[in-house]
């Protein structure tokens, strides 16, 4: 491919030639030769066609946001020797280079291999594709180049960071017949003492209450409160209007982290967890138990990008149609609009036990604006408006107003057992 410089040289040469003819002075013809000499010199060493193969390998195919991984790109020249070979491994902008480079210029003789190594750190969760590699053979005089794209793409899945919810008090109040960690307020298999009754044939010996048996002069057995599991449905509000902040620091990203943390915490307590995501499409993961379900939820959360304008009424329809009625609903939303109030009231009226985790968009925005009296006044006004909404929501649901600069476990530990008003 001819570069603009080659065209400029041809133009300059022609201009001097015409000037020489117009003025009938031979002195103008001589400068016309210099660009021609450069062009001729460039034509002596034209850039060969790139016959290059690349093989890319990554140290990890799944990585967490902020975690580093290494990429190695082996470039082999299978054609004739290239004096100036420019290699650029095309990367998505979300992957930040922390060591080395994805771009180089080098000489590569025929048949030799060069390994380009660099370390990446993803700034955002998602499914990213690296490559293909752009290879360009340059002319030393910048008069021409030959370029091509080689090699296959490599996919890397970047998972969101998980909020640690150790000792957080979050779990379903209503239980189902499966064993779990939730006190069911019914007699069953568990560890918490419930009462004493007369011994029945078949009772385990270790359940016999020897002190009571001695007092009543007949065998008595202990009864325990059954520990069962329940269902939790996480609703993640990832609508366009909820993405308050920058692409890396916004309420939706914090919501994703919270959703993953809640899912992990609730699944670890042997409950079933389901997920509904309001984004460009309204998609959901039906409730299930275990580690596999966590990975299913993680795969869904990895692809969450803010978008769409699904109203909460659609979410309520999906919830009533595809999820159990006695499930606990954890709504993760920055509460940027007031429609959430009627939606939560409707859910509570339908009998759902609703908990709202709200990453505060005010704190995110406050961190983005330089301090000043105008910012402080605006913050106070918006704070009052938000507190008003939160206090209205607290009549029908538990609300956790989360400042994303602090760990989510802190407000969740302060969560008290709550009974909805009659």
């Amino acid at each position, binding site marked *: 491919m001819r570069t603009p410089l080659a065209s400029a040289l041809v133009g300059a040469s022609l201009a001097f030639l015409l000037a020489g003819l117009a003025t009938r002075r031979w002195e103008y013809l*001589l400068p016309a030769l210099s660009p021609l000499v450069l062009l001729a010199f460039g034509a002596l060493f034209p850039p060969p066609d790139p016959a290059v193969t690349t093989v890319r390998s990554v140290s990890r195919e799944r990585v967490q946001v902020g975690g580093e991984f290494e990429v190695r790109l082996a470039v082999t020249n299978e054609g004739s020797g290239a004096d100036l070979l420019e290699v650029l491994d095309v990367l998505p902008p979300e992957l930040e280079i922390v060591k080395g480079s994805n771009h180089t210029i080098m000489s590569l003789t025929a048949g030799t291999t*060069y390994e380009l190594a660099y370390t990446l750190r993803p700034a955002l969760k998602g499914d990213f594709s690296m490559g293909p590699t752009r290879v360009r053979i340059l002319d030393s005089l910048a008069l021409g180049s030959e370029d091509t794209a080689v090699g296959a793409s490599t996919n890397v899945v970047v998972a969101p960071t998980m909020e640690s919810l150790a000792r957080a008090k979050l779990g379903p109040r209503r239980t189902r017949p499966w064993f779990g960690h939730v006190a069911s307020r019914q007699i069953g298999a568990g560890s918490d003492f419930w009462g004493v009754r007369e011994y029945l044939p078949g009772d385990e010996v270790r359940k016999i209450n020897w002190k009571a048996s001695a007092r009543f002069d007949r065998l008595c057995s202990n009864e325990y409160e059954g520990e069962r599991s329940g269902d939790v449905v996480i609703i993640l509000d990832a609508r366009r209007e909820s993405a308050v902040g920058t692409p890396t620091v916004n309420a939706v990203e914090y919501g994703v982290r919270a959703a993953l943390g809640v899912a992990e915490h609730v699944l670890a307590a042997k409950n079933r967890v389901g997920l509904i995501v309001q984004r460009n499409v309204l998609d959901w993961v039906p409730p299930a138990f275990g580690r596999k379900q966590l990975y299913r939820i993680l795969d869904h959360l990895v692809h969450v990008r803010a978008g769409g304008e699904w109203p909460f009424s659609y979410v309520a329809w999906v919830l009533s149609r595809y999820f159990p009625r006695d499930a606990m609903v954890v709504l993760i939303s920055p509460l940027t609009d007031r429609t959430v109030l009627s939606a939560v009231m409707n859910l509570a009226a339908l009998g759902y036990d609703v908990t709202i985790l709200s990453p505060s968009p005010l704190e995110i925005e406050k961190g983005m604006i330089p301090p000043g009296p105008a910012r402080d006044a605006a913050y106070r006004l918006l704070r009052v408006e938000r507190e008003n909404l939160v206090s209205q929501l607290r009549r029908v649901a538990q609300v956790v107003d989360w400042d994303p600069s602090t760990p989510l476990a802190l407000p969740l530990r302060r969560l008290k057992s709550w009974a909805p008003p009659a």
Partner: protein
Amino acid sequence: MGASRMKAAGLWVPAFVSLGLLIGWSVAEIAQIPDGRAEQAFAILVALGILNLVLGWRFRVNLMRRSGLLLVALPYFAAHAHWLPLDAAAAVGFLVVALAHVELRILAERFAPLYLRDLGPEDLARIRASLMRASLRVGAATAMAFLLPIFAGDLALAGTVPVTTIPTALLLAAGLVAVIVLLALLPVWQRRRQLVGSSWAEDPRGKL
């Protein structure tokens, strides 16, 4: 890293020196124009050129850099066309300095960012080898671009090739036009040849 930064900065030195030389030369020639108004007009043009170069450099606008170079170089030839006598060797020298500046700037743009990165000794050696080859070629090409026209002029003046008659001058001009057209069309022909009957036609995956 400090040494690499020095190297990156050092790559720009020849480009700036050649540009400084070009501007100084142009200003010196303009200063010799006997007509005060023409001198003033050309000085404004050169000043505009310098401004364009600076702004083009600052904001990375190629068009401004190109027009700046043109505005710096054009007054030299314009002044010699009307007000000053034209020395062929000096004119070729001026043009070659301009061409060398462009080549050196491109070289610096290609290689300086590479030295700013955290590179291992093997990478540095490869880059240095490429830089050396490219510098040698640029040096050889600019030397030839200066010497060949001078030799051609000498030959013409010595009478080896008579250029004093109109038919021979026209013949030479026609020859030059043919060479330029050939050079201009060479890449197009080359590409067409590749498209017809080459391995690329059979295996389109090899190309963009």
